């Protein structure tokens, strides 16, 4: 049994224009101590997937799944999340400046979380807060504890946010585009910090990003999301060495290389289908350069033509059926 098990996760929003499927049946399995990257274009459902793991999908979102467990405990249909949020799962966000409460000092915020989760007060709590700040690379903790978020740089804010997320003693960290708002050198530092924390504390990390560069630097395994479905999953090394899905191949081809001008994920032509109209066939069919016969009528399911390397594409369905 994996540390985190997700089977057939679906998240839909009932809007006045109809039912909108943001996530349309994804399977994930994370092992303890790994850094798993979830990659995909903006709007493909990365954030709502992570929020679903904490019961924080905002209304009118509806979450269903065949299975959703973390470390053996069931996250499905839970009303009381006290045992999960903070205690087992912690989260950091894209915009650290907006994710830290502007009206409390970092010391106040850290001590409050420590007091709530670990029951430590006063000097003990402050000592733990200081140790956490040192842990995340803020040795100047005396100043940081007294500072308000707006008095810190973006990189320091994200470090402080990580300290706050770890303050409650969680072993599973969800990092939702933690470096998107930061410049490149700071980005590399934060990613190195996350890896270091994983090594030191045995954290399991779900790293959400739209940037394959981040995946290459940090992740052990990767899942590629497209329009709310998982189209490919493999180890990071495998994914870069031999991408299988036409979408992943397109993404990798669009990666900036030395000498060429960099472009982003959206460099693949065409538009992501709106989740409004349920697509009968492959969600990538409208943009796929290799689209063929069955693509528009049947939805490809995630198969493993090579062990440990899953791909949802009819090119491989045929192959598997033939073999």
């Amino acid at each position, binding site marked *: 049994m994996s540390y985190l098990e997700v089977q057939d996760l679906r998240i839909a929003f009932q809007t006045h224009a109809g039912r909108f499927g943001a996530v349309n049946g994804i399977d994930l399995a994370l092992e303890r101590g790994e850094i798993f990257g979830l990659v995909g274009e903006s709007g493909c459902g990365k954030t709502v997937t992570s929020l679903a793991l904490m019961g*924080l999908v905002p209304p009118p979102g509806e979450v269903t799944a065949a299975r959703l467990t973390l470390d053996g405990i069931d996250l499905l249909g839970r009303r009381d999340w*006290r045992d999960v949020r903070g205690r087992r799962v*912690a989260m950091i966000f894209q915009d650290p400046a907006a994710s830290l409460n502007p009206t409390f000092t970092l010391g106040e915020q850290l001590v409050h*979380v420590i007091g709530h989760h670990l029951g430590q007060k006063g000097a003990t709590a402050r000592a733990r807060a200081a140790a956490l700040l040192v842990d995340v690379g803020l040795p100047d903790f005396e100043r940081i504890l007294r500072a*308000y978020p707006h008095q810190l740089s973006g990189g320091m804010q994200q470090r402080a946010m990580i300290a706050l997320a770890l303050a409650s003693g969680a072993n599973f960290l969800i990092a939702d585009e933690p470096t998107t708002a930061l410049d490149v050198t700071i980005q590399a530092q934060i990613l190195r910090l996350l890896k270091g924390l994983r090594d030191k504390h045995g954290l399991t990390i779900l790293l959400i990003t739209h940037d394959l560069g981040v995946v290459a630097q940090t992740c052990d395994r990767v899942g590629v999301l497209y329009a709310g479905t998982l189209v490919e999953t493999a180890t990071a090394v495998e994914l870069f060495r031999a991408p299988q899905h036409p979408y992943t191949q397109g993404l990798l081809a669009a990666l900036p290389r030395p000498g060429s001008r960099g472009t982003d994920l959206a460099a693949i032509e065409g538009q992501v289908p709106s989740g409004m109209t349920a697509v009968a066939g492959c969600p990538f069919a409208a943009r796929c350069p290799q689209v063929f016969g069955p693509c528009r009528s049947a939805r490809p399911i995630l198969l493993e033509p090579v062990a440990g390397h899953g791909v949802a594409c009819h090119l491989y369905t045929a192959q598997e059926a033939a073999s």
Partner: protein
Amino acid sequence: MTLYILRRLALAGLVLFSVSALTFLISRVVPSDPAALFAGQRPTAEQIALARERLGLDQPLVVQYARFMGDILSGDLGISYKTKHAIASDLATFLPATLELVLVSIALALLIGIPAGVLAGAQRGGWFDQATRVLSIAGVSIPAFWLALILQLVFFGAWHLLPLSSRTSNEAAIMYPIQAITGFHLVDAALTGNWTGWVDAALHIVLPAFTLATYPISLTLRMTRAAMVEVLGEKYIVAARAQGLPERDVLFRYALKNAIVPALNVLGLSFAFSLTGSFLVEVIFSWPGLGKYVTDSILNADFPVIVSVTLIVTVFYVLINLAVDLIQARLDPRVVLR
């Protein structure tokens, strides 16, 4: 910080100076004869002339104003044309009763309006939100005199729960008189340990304070609700929930501290507004505050009283606004006092 306060106080001085000049001017251009009033009933022409001289009303306006300002600056508010009492001592009698009423009503607005606004904002569109929406619209639109009558009919007339009017009952005033220290009954009774007197005073203040408070309660509630709705959409609230903090902390600590400033501004304005708004309520509830004193002075063109009360209200207005700004700066570290 200190510099800021000093600058604000200097500015306040300027405001007070302008207000005093304005009220003084208005009081001198309206067609009425204070000297005739001062001279008593059915005065002769000579008596009036004498009164005019004593009051300095025969001097040029500039001289009159200079004298008036000189007196005020030396702490002398002058004497009432009507009662012939020193206005300062009249105010010392009447102002505490009004202030106590206003302070209790503002406390009610704070203690009811803000928590109710937080809860309404937290369950936007829920039954509590709907109910408080209706109630607060009623609260800002019901005339005070009508509400006062209804409250009197229900709580005194029908249920005999609360006294009809005045600041104390006669029995309590005789058996357990409240010794005047600050002039605030609730404070004085507590200071002297006169708990029977305290309960009596508390029961008497409930209806007038609530009548006076309906407007600020409603306004505070709506302001808090609107600010909460906005703040609850912020990322740091999702983050606080993800940290597993209890909903009570998320709402009343993490969100409220960011949402309370508009409500405090409203409360600050309400305080100044209630100082004069209380006059009507005081008359209805026979509350021995400034209300009757001021009404009489207006009816009698008793200008020194009118000017003094105007200045007092202005002083409170200015000080409270300063206090609200300082509190705001304390609550939100991003606010820069300039």
